[in-house]
């Protein structure tokens, strides 16, 4: 009845690892330049005039002219774009209108908080998402599968800001199980600068390094809710993809081979199939990690989390466009970096890709 399915064979590309990596780097560089082009265009069509934004409404005509020349606004557009690229590659994202500080160093202070939050989130997502997906795939169509599927789809359907508010309402307001908004209780927040040296700007790591375990516990109670919420979002995606990859692998002939060899089902799934699922899953995890950085924008607003997302939204509300665009560029660059890294891991994990 069912003869072997005819999936196309993997092409045996004899392209060397190095050459492929160089290719990827090249194409990502072009993507990055494109990203800069888009932010540049956005920056130039902003209705807010950068000169008035800096000097205020009452500047004299002479002051405006000097500043325009200084900012290079009188040069042709393409020249401005080249200068813009040069500046970005030198790490100069301009000055924030609000604080007059260099944007890059501001982001350097905000970004670790986001990184900490989303890393914890993705870890939660992986540890729940993969087993959940496997659970669904091993009994497709069963109740178990439907429940996993429903929980996953619910994650896809929740507005993250609302989920955050509901989480605060329930776990902080009613049950008091977790800390409220912010990274620490205000008492600890005041002690933070005195007692803890900001080594990584990640609060869990810094407090642990300083040996301030009370503070560490407090920080944990604050981060656990937003991280779980982000973890739930990524779990939704990871479990769905795991399920579909796993279903695909379980239909393969080598699975039958493993069963013929008398391997227990546990080993068939978690060793034979999982090793194959892991390869495409790398890309999925990287993608959901990148998405978490984005999910962090809204989550950070809810949880008063001093991260990049909050930095961007705060800047937006007071029309601080250089800060908004600087933040966008950084997030875009991280996106691209994650892509590149996952591409690299993918080719390490799949022996056929070499």
């Amino acid at each position, binding site marked *: 009845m069912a003869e072997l399915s005819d999936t196309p064979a993997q092409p045996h590309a004899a392209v060397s690892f190095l050459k492929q990596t160089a290719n990827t780097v090249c194409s990502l560089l072009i993507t*990055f330049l494109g990203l800069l082009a888009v932010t540049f265009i956005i920056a130039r069509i902003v209705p807010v005039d950068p000169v008035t934004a800096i000097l205020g409404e009452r500047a004299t005509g002479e002051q405006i002219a000097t500043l325009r020349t200084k900012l290079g606004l009188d040069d042709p557009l393409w020249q401005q774009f080249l200068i813009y690229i040069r500046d970005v590659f030198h790490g100069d994202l301009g000055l924030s209108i609000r604080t007059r500080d260099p944007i890059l160093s501001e982001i350097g202070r905000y970004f670790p908080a986001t990184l900490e939050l989303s890393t914890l989130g993705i870890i939660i997502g992986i540890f729940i998402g993969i087993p959940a997906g496997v659970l669904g795939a091993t009994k497709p169509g069963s109740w178990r599968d439907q429940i996993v599927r429903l929980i996953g789809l619910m994650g896809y359907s929740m507005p993250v800001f609302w989920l955050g508010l509901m989480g605060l309402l329930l776990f902080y307001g009613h049950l008091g199980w977790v800390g409220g908004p912010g990274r620490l209780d205000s008492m600890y927040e005041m002690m933070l600068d005195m007692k803890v040296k900001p080594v990584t700007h990640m609060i869990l790591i810094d407090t642990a390094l300083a040996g301030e375990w009370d503070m560490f516990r407090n920080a944990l109670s604050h981060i656990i809710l937003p991280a779980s919420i982000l973890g739930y979002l990524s779990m939704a995606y990871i479990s769905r993809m795991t399920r*579909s990859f796993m279903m695909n692998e379980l239909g393969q002939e080598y699975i039958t081979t493993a069963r013929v060899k008398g391997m227990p089902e546990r080993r068939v799934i978690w060793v034979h199939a999982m090793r194959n699922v892991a390869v495409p899953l790398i890309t999925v995890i990287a993608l959901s990690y990148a*998405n978490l950085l984005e999910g962090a924008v809204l989550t950070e607003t809810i949880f008063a989390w001093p991260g990049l997302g909050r930095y961007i939204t705060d800047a937006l509300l007071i029309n601080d466009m250089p800060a908004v665009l600087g933040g966008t560029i950084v997030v875009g660059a991280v996106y691209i970096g994650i892509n590149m890294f996952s591409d690299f891991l993918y080719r390490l994990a799949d022996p056929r890709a070499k």
Partner: protein
Amino acid sequence: MTTLNTWLMDPNPKSRLQSRAAQTWLTWLRFRRNPLAMIGLIISLALIFMSIFAPLLAPYDPIAQSLADRLQPPLTPGHWMGTDDFGRDIWSRILFGSRITLYIVLLVIITAPVFGLIVGTVSGYFGGWVDSVLMRITDIFLAFPKLILALALVAVLGPGMVNAVLAIALTSWPPYARVARAETLTVRNSDYIAATRLQGASATRLIWGHIMPMCLPSVIIRVTLDMAGVILTAAGLGFLGLGVQPPLPEWGLMISAGRKFLFEQWWVATMPGLAIFIVSLGFNLLGDGLRDVLDPRSAGK
């Protein structure tokens, strides 16, 4: 009924119409067996019903304020979902809000997929440098975090419903272009395309008349799966004050208004969030079920 059933189940259809009808019927039977997908269908139909008949269903005006009734808890007589800080009935606002949600979704799904479809088919059909350039541009847009690009765009264009739609559409077309291009590549070299070309059909005619219809099923499946995402992004923009502006009863905006007194008057933020959640869950369940029955590759059975 029985005769209709035998007609539909006839293994040797006598006309094209019969075979099509039988195919559709079989798809429907398969779809109906999936309880979650049916729930999704019912929710989606309910949303459409709600938004059409909002003025008839809503007990109160969604905008008119009545400060005497402010912050009534749920199950208050006349306000079963309670009232907000301006004394407006939350249920009425949610009903009218469904119109805004549906309107945004409709605007996005008639712009982004169409644009993506054009880019993808042209790119796939012509290949070569056209393909390289178009796909590079697509990649650039894909490299942007969607919500943040939408934020930046709205910041430039100024807040408002139309600008929010524009920003969402501008950030959501690339996946459609990818899907359409992949489909185009598979049909481009098929014999029937070659035959049509030999008859002297122009590139436009080929793309429009022969390639685009082939791409439609996969694009439609993506659209249903994306609708929930559109709703969530629109609500997110509204929540940040960058989308629909007050006093319009947009759900994200309503949540943001309720945030101020979350711990005291929880229902103001909870109710509109529930509405967003149920509606996007409905679209997701529907899209998921549709994909299972329409896309043979994902069936996996």
